[in-house]
């Protein structure tokens, strides 16, 4: 129930931000194409988040992560 509430609120805020972006933004201040594209940062954030999580997970499990007592002589 709580999760669904969170989802609904999140979706509404996202929708509101997209509307605000379309109607109230000032594209004349923009320096690059992505600053004028509606919803760019939502897509960027979502993909970036997935890339970071999966990238870190792969890096960790394949290479970096060791048991907690690695330096005390455990493996």
């Amino acid at each position, binding site marked *: 129930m709580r999760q669904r509430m969170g989802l609904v609120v999140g979706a509404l805020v996202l929708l509101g931000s997209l509307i605000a972006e379309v109607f109230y*933004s000032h594209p004349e201040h923009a320096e690059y194409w992505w600053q004028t594209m509606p919803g760019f940062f939502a897509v960027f954030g979502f993909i970036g988040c997935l890339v970071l999580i999966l990238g870190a997970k792969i890096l960790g499990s394949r290479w970096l992560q060791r048991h907690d007592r690695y330096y005390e002589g455990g493996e």
Partner: protein
Amino acid sequence: MFLFHPALILTTGAIAAATLPGRLRRVSLVVFPSLALAAVLSLEPGTTWVYPVLTVKLVLLKVDALSKVFGVIFSLIALFASIYALHIRNRGEHAAALLYAAGSLGVVFAGDWLTLVVFWESMSITSVFLIWYRGKPRSLSAGFRYLLVHTLGGNALLAGVVLYIAGGGWEVGSLAGGSGSAFWLILFGFAVNAAIPPLHAWLTDAYPEATVTGSVFLSAFTTKVAVYTLIRVFPGVELLVWAGVIMALYGVVFAFLENNIRRLLAYHIVSQVGYMVAAAGMGTAFALNGGTAHAFSHILYKALLFMGAGAVIYATGREKLTDLGGIARYMPWVVIFYTIGAFSISGVPFFNGFISKSIVIAAAGADRRPLVELLLELASVGTFLSISLKLLYFMFFGPARASRPVSKIPLNMYVGMGAASVLCIVFGLFPALLYNQLPYRLYYEPYTVDHLVSSVQLLLATAAGFWLLLPKIGVKNTISLDTDWFYRRPLAVLFQRLVDATHRVDRGSEQAGTLILEASKPYFNNPFLAAERLNELFGSRSAPRGLPGKSEPVRAQPYDEHRYRFPLGVTVFWVMVIFGLTVSLIWIYQG
């Protein structure tokens, strides 16, 4: 108008904390940092105090807008962290913490290189006690590694400064555009303290092993003093832009893998300092303002986050995410304060990270660096992911692995967290309070529709990604290998081999010596024995066979050492002669 150097006030405070009894000590822990803050606030930009010592003129205090804003935040956080630590009974820890803070103010206001180096070294020597006072074996060894790395960095800085002074330099100023060994040595020394990978591992190794209150001090000073010196000495050094971007992402990735709550926060120091280092590297007035503002905000919210994590460790005695969870209802205020810190570092609108991080990102855009701008935005996705979502969820909510807290959190810890929280929100709501203190004029408005919209979208999308992958994220009881592996494993093995080899040589030579001594003992007892043995080996063959009787008399008469000794009288005679000669010589020359 105060007539004391702020560092001197904190040093006096350290002496007071080390000597005064109970209640007076607690009063002094609040009074002296407050006095230092008042002293910094009353300093007028342009003030310079010069002390001639022997042949040099020490510039102990030189104030401009940049040093003043750093001085303000350092003395402010010294006050908050002291309040947070009021319940600690260990005098040494208080004294070390205040001396450490005094060192940071000394560096910030140092006008010449020699003063800067002396205060710089004092910071690493005093701060290591904040790690050692935790008293665990891990803290002891982490403290030694911390000290060794900082000694390396400090010596590089010292060597660079000596070369620079030998070349005629004296006052601290920009070296940008230079080259040569002095330039690189000083940059290396600063880079160690700024925790630029691969020189950063001392930070994430040692800070989580410090005392609960000590890590709050540690999170504020060393790296941000290095940021100050980078802004002052190396503005516009292109290398730093990319070093900063790499730092920002490196810290985020490692933080996400981390299980120890304070090590996770420590990786986010690396990440956040990356924004400041990148700003120093861009070197425009806009970027330098951004770096300074972000250092100011960062010190507040990072101290707050370490205070929150410290309160959890204090209350539960646990510091790993795999041992925590489900404790939110036992400490609602800690959750609130921690969340304020987490929202600040993530750049949520109306918190102080939002108004300072965005200057650095906007400066990258204004400086025509689109890739830097986007990568820094990506790092803030990772920041929100680990600090606000992962840590908040697995520490306070999530599956409960911890039982009821074991100790009650003292009131002063709440006061410290509350004060930092209030300022995080105040500066977030009224950015002009911070912008007016910055070294250059700033034309920037953080609360535009575009900026609000892009931040909200970025954060919401990150939360959605986290929610989607939550079943896969989990936490594991692991550590991650980092560049400290090189000196904790291969170098340690090499060192151990060297020690073993030396030990073997020592023991072997001792055994060989004993053998030789044993074998030669009869020859010392009887010097003729050697001749006899030689005679047995070689002589007997050449001796005429038919006449064995000729060699018999030597053996027949056993060796008696007294036969070959001088009578005692001879020795006495020569002693008397030499004594007489000496006396007469002295007598002649005296006369």
